[in-house]
């Protein structure tokens, strides 16, 4: 039934069409590079040198030691020494500093007497991101200071402590998190922006009837149209992987073959979905928009690429459950950083197979129906 000759002819036609469309080519090859540069170089959440104001009303050795602990941490930069509490609050409110530390009089006395010694930390909550991170740093610094102060002069250890070990990404570099996830985002964009056009274009140009009149089987059409995009997709996975390893030093600990197979499955699903949308909507512009909402946005927001799914409300967690990119990102991170194989990733592997089958199935189904009516 299926002929490799017709399949190849179909793929070649699609490739020639694609190659002539210069903007598509730019999108297919320049966009991944641009994304890599932006995400790899520009984005980081590592907040350092938080601008801090310190008002020390205690002026004792203990209070100076606390201030020094803030300075020595490397996270804060003391840029202002306000003279009063009003001023300490004012510099925060006017956005001059991100936070003010106020050490009240009697701080050292309370600490020595075993009474609760409190220091104030005033934050600019209008930048919630920086404020949260700065508060986390301040918390850790005060906790460490507190421990030293409590145990001072006593020959005992901390009563209980945690030995924290970070697996897979010991330096907690955000690049190691971003690059494997980026592959999924790039794939989704290609699927959304390129495939969404393919069938709608035939309708808009009136070549659909011609295609239907030829003896090509609908599976040949679907696969023939998919092949060039699959090629572009695989090329981009390769480029991103190599660039991630060489430019950004992301380790590839697992099997390349597993990564390749999973990527092809994910691509087939995403491309099939793009074709399905294209066939249903029959308009290039509309199809790209819908495909962007259906594949790109979930891959960016609900896949765990950047934002923690566990912290989202239950409705979004439920939606994320059926976002294929979420499973694909588990695969890329698993292969890149964890170095795990199919014995661990079989659930994700199965979901990739299902996604590919659903994508191709939908594209084939809708294609037949549309030609029939």
């Amino acid at each position: 039934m299926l002929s490799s000759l017709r399949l190849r002819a179909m793929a070649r036609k699609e490739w020639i069409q694609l190659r002539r469309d210069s903007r598509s080519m730019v999108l297919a090859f320049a966009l991944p590079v641009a994304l890599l540069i932006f995400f790899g170089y520009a984005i980081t959440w590592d907040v350092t040198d938080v601008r801090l104001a310190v008002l020390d009303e205690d002026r004792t050795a203990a209070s100076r030691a606390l201030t020094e602990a803030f300075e020595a941490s490397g996270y804060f930069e003391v840029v202002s020494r306000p003279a009063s509490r009003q001023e300490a609050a004012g510099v925060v409110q006017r956005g001059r500093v991100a936070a003010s530390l106020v050490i009240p009089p009697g701080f050292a006395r309370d600490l020595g007497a075993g009474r609760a010694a409190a220091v104030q930390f005033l934050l600019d909550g209008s930048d919630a991101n920086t404020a949260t991170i700065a508060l986390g740093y301040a918390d850790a610094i005060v906790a460490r200071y507190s421990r030293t102060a409590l145990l001072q002069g006593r020959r005992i250890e901390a009563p209980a402590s945690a030995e924290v070990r970070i697996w897979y990404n010991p330096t907690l570099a955000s690049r190691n998190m971003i690059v494997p996830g980026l592959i999924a985002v790039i794939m989704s964009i290609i699927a959304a922006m390129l495939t969404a056009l393919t069938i709608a274009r035939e309708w808009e140009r009136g070549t659909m009837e011609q295609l239907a009149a030829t003896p090509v089987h609908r599976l040949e059409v679907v696969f023939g149209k998919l092949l060039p995009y699959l090629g572009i997709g695989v090329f981009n996975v390769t480029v991103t992987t190599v660039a991630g390893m060489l430019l950004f030093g992301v380790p590839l600990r697992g099997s390349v073959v597993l990564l390749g197979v999973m990527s092809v499955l994910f691509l087939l699903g995403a491309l099939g979905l793009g074709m399905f949308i294209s066939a249903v909507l029959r308009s290039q512009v509309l199809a790209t928009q819908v495909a962007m909402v259906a594949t790109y946005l979930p891959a960016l927001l609900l896949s765990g690429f950047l934002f923690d799914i566990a912290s989202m409300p239950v409705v979004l967690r439920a939606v994320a459950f059926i976002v294929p990119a979420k499973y694909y990102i588990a695969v890329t991170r698993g292969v890149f950083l964890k170095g795990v194989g199919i014995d661990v990733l079989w659930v994700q592997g199965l979901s990739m197979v299902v996604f590919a089958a659903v994508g191709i199935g939908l594209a084939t189904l809708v294609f037949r129906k549309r030609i029939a009516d």
Partner: protein
Amino acid sequence: MGASRDGRTVPLADRRRRVLTLVRKELRQILRDPKTRRIVFAAPIIQLLLFGYAVTTDVHSVSTFVVDHDRTVESRALQDAFTAGGQFRIVGRSDRPADLEKALDQGRSVVGLEIPAGFARDLAARRGARVQVLVDGTSSNTATVAQGYAARVVQEFGFRHAAARGDIRGNGVELRARAWFNPELASRAYNVPAVMGVLLLLMCLLLTALTVVREREMGTLEQLMVSPLTPGELMLGKTIPVALIAFADLVLITLVAVLWFDVPLRGSPFALLLASALYILASLGLGLFVSTISRTQQEAFMGMFLLLLPAIILSGFMYPVHTMPPFFQYISLLNPVRHFLVVVRAIFLRGDGVVELWPQFVVLAAMAAAVLLGATARFRRSTASGG
């Protein structure tokens, strides 16, 4: 083409009437199509809800796997201390460390807590009890926060235990944090106003980028050219309807932000309106520019996408600008979204007005003027060469 040049001698009232006619035609064209209506009014709301909920840097309910070799009152109390604050959620328990490793490998849990046998004994004997915490570092944000939480929970557990026995006096130093403008440090209050900036840009680009190109593709551009409209009038007629729709979206989004997400609008709505007007003009100009340099709707759409991507990444929405390398920070100065986000966040949360934010207002106004003039000039040239 000659007709459009004669426009100069026409009285002002006539020109106004011509522009108004075009505005009405454009508005009708946009709002007639139910699909477009949905894109214009329903899509921003859906996207606001999606971004408002999904873009969060808060970390809680971190999935935790527990291996408790000790099985004492103390070891169970430590587990309770982990879940008490809501930061951790225990998703599995086992006796074998191998299960913990597997849970981390599979990504079923992000944190593994292993309490060794003798934990309670060490605690009682004041020998410094230790537990092991394994953190999956692949999600570096979550891991950074989670490791800090975990170390904190264990330390505080130990000190509470020691203080109860009278080994140590006092509770050490307490950090009393107080945040202005956003006391709970909810990342939503910070992100939702920013989503507004992104959605307005998206809407303006979407509606304008396709407009001139659509006329060109459908062949109606020539009809417009032979009409007595000047390029300037044509641009006005094309932008005013989109600006009106963008303002309607602005009101809609602000209402959802305030009523649904409880984001406080502390500053004056007038300042918000003024800033949005400048920003909308700049966005429209960008859209028109894309439209005039594209030959097909598809090209315009891709041009828009390529413009949108850096505009959003380098805006301070989702990713802070001040942690970027200096090079990208300089580039982001050319980005109207960055300046608008500073303004909306300040107006919403800090209650700032034009007085505090005048540099941003000046920059936005300059950008709007530059982009609109550029787009008109480009349009004049392209129509001249086209005709």
